[in-house]
């Protein structure tokens, strides 16, 4: 009723022009409120249900994590102040912050961390499967005392810190009652505001698809944020979000399309372009069992020719408007220091591509299109909405035009993400020919990206149809390599293998672009984000200028 009355009154007031009086500022009696715009809404406040990045960035602000990333991409203390590893690499011991409390005054100890990890492990094949990755090979989490957490793994695990960085430590006293039986209740607990918080902020209000508001948590064990709180408004259209920033209804926008950069800069906003965590690629179906109509795609010479046909420099210049860099490795440059700098983008060389195709025996037909195995080389390229919704369609047009010059016809097949998933995975990835998609990796560790190409990921994330013992063996070795130098060596070897096999023809790395008002300072980026799901540091340090 109140809404209906408000609506009626709203119409009258809108007509009378009074609405302008209602515009709120970004200040409260407690201090400044930082206002963010996001094009991705929180799907759930329950970490066992949620899958979107925004939700995990929110958990980062309201829940402790054992470690976090600093702006240089290093793991630094958060709830754990120090950590050690046993000689065999199977036992990790963390010293946690003493005397910490949750926002409801209950003690926050290492036991909460142990409970969270053990609970995820206990139900990893069911209710907590979405977080199971973070506890794989974990035998047990125990607490010899309230400020010590001991994790025992069944084998040496190289990226323990990276995994733990992403696990929100939940208050056992709130969640324990849902972890009984088959644990299914863990997925139905909505965890609505006010959420019991252990991080620097407390969620005070969440209206799904509209807004999430946070206030400073006085009980937080870490440094006090400079801001009194922050809010995130969710938008379903980039245009409205950018307009809201320009109209000063927002202080910052998380994801700025490259087409808006010049506009925002000229309007006086600070636009930050950072090396991205995403790469765009043409995926050529490398599945040896694929359909006869395009079985030639398994030919390495053909994929090499295709690689030479991608004009990466033009794509960066035209599609990304300069906000990105040509692609070479499957590890994007934003992934700490894991990208193999020795790998260079394949040169754009139509002459070389034509020679390779001639050499492989694909002659041109009467209309100029090459013939392979008796049929014209004419391939549908699946473009999921992730790709065609942004600069991807421009990139595809450049690629299609160049492919025509080597006698290969490409046709765009636009699908939404769900339909694209289905099309690529159908019939064990035997049916599709090519896709153009984007992949995102982790900020501090390459493990996720490398995992995409394993045989184990077939039918789930491995959309290339690629599966090799060599890759899987290297993947297992890097996962158990306990010295950074050894692991870097293996990861570099894997990047070179991926480049050599050319199953993912990496096109470009779009920059991660944020914009914010110059009224705010001290807002470092972690993995290209100031609103990070891997670090509390940016929102702890941001403050109003002056």
């Amino acid at each position, binding site marked *: 009723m109140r809404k209906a009355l408000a609506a009626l009154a*709203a119409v009258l007031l809108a007509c009378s022009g009074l609405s302008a009086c209602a515009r709120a500022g970004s200040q409260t009696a407690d201090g400044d409120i930082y206002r963010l715009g996001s094009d991705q809404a929180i799907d759930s406040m329950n970490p066992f249900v949620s*899958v979107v990045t925004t939700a995990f960035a929110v958990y980062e602000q309201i829940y402790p994590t054992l470690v976090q990333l600093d702006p240089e991409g290093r793991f630094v203390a958060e709830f754990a102040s120090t950590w050690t590893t046993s000689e065999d690499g199977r036992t990790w011991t963390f010293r946690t912050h003493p005397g910490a409390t949750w926002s409801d005054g209950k003690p926050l100890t290492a036991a909460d961390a142990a409970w969270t990890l053990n609970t995820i492990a206990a139900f990893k094949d069911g209710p907590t499967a979405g977080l199971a990755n973070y506890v794989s090979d974990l035998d047990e989490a125990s607490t010899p005392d309230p400020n010590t957490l001991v994790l025992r793994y069944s084998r040496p695990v190289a990226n323990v810190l990276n995994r733990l960085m992403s696990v929100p430590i939940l208050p056992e006293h709130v969640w324990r009652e849902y972890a009984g039986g088959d644990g299914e209740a863990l997925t139905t607990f909505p965890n609505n505001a006010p959420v019991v918080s252990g991080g620097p902020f407390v969620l005070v209000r969440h209206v799904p698809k509209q807004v999430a*508001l946070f206030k400073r948590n006085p009980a937080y064990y870490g440094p006090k944020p400079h801001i009194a709180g922050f809010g995130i408004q969710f938008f379903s259209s980039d245009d409205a979000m950018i307009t809201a920033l320009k109209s000063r209804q927002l202080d910052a926008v998380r994801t700025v399309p490259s087409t808006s950069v010049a506009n925002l800069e000229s309007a006086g906003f600070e636009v930050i372009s950072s090396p991205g965590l995403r790469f765009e690629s043409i995926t050529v179906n490398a599945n040896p069992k694929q359909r006869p109509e395009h079985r030639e795609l398994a030919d390495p010479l053909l994929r090499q020719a295709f690689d030479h046909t991608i004009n990466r420099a033009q794509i960066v210049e035209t599609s990304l408007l300069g906000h990105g860099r040509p692609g070479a490795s499957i590890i994007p440059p934003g992934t700490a220091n894991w990208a193999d700098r020795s790998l260079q983008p394949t040169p754009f060389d139509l002459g070389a591509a034509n020679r390779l195709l001639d050499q492989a025996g694909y002659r041109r037909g009467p209309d100029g299109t090459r013939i392979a195995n008796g049929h014209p080389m004419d391939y549908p390229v699946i473009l999921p909405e992730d790709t065609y919704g942004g600069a991807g369609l421009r990139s595809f047009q450049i690629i299609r035009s160049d492919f025509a010059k080597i006698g290969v016809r490409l046709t765009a097949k636009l699908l939404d993400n769900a339909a694209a998933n289905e099309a690529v995975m159908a019939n064990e990835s035997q049916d599709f020919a090519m896709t153009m998609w984007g992949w995102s990796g982790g900020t501090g560790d390459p493990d996720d990206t490398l995992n995409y190409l394993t045989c184990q990921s077939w039918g789930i994330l491995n959309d290339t149809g690629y599966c090799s013992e060599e890759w899987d063996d290297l993947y297992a070795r890097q996962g158990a390599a306990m010295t950074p130098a050894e692991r870097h060596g293996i990861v570099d070897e894997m990047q070179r293998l991926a480049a050599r096999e050319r199953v993912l023809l990496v096109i470009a790395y779009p920059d991660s672009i944020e914009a914010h008002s110059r009224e705010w300072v001290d807002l470092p980026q972690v993995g290209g984000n100031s609103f990070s799901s891997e670090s509390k540091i940016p929102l702890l340090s941001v403050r109003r200028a002056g």
Partner: protein
Amino acid sequence: MRVLEYVLRRGIFSLVTIFLAITGNFFLFRVLPGDAVSNLAKVPHSTPELQHALMVRFGLDKSKWDQYLIYLKNLLHGDLGVSFTYQESVSHLLLDDLENTVVLAGVGTLGAIFIGILSGVMSAWRRSSPLDHLNTGVATLVYSFPAQWLGLVLLILFAGVLPAGGMSDQFLFDSPPFWQHAADVGGHLVLPAATMILTAYGGYTLVVRSSVLETLGEDYVLTARAKGIPARRVVWRHAVRNALLPIVTMVALDLGYVVGGAVLVEVIFSWPGLGMATFTAIGQRDYPMIQGAFLILTVSVILLNFVADLVCFRLDRRVSA
């Protein structure tokens, strides 16, 4: 008796249509390629166990027929199910969305009807004058604009003057007083409602103009003028009143599409209504949300058409099934 029979017949027809629509909605999205599980399971190190757990959680491991029967049974109990994405009750999630859409679509449609009638009558009364040409020209032009294009133009034109997205100022930590809240919603309503009004009023203008023109030539209108009744009264009391039937029919039929018609406008202006919820749910293959949203859309279209039928029947008894 004839009235009762007519109402009953239309009522039964509406119920059957709703049942068919419910069945159609259920199967339509299940035959689309892609499902919620593959979407949700697309996380690093995802496992077949996760996919299976999600299938079981959502009841997708059962046959489509079983799922359909369960859906119907739940529906009879007023239970629209639990959203795959949000893991919350669909009816709870959609209720707020529906209210928000009714606010936007209501203002948009009523505004369009009001302006459409006013400008249509003016055009008819000043037939062939520069005002008529200007009026019909603008109405025809604006009527042909796609809503999303016009919305973006308004967004750009009024950037900084009017709020660009959402339904109210989202960053108010404390609930503002009623009038302040109302003013805030009003400010946010201006651009999306204007988009709806501008893209819809032209149709009303043209229909009203032509309908009123017809009546203006009727004997009783000429008689009224000959009697010296003031022009304004002749138009509103005699001409417009008798031109109402096609206008009411159009308004009633349009009302049925009000809720669904707001989809694009809601997406552009991030208006948290049913349209935005449907748009998101389809992308996520969130079947319960899609079914719930489409059920509301279907029922509102059928219900309002039913009302339109009754109104037309009341206005003109020549109308029959």
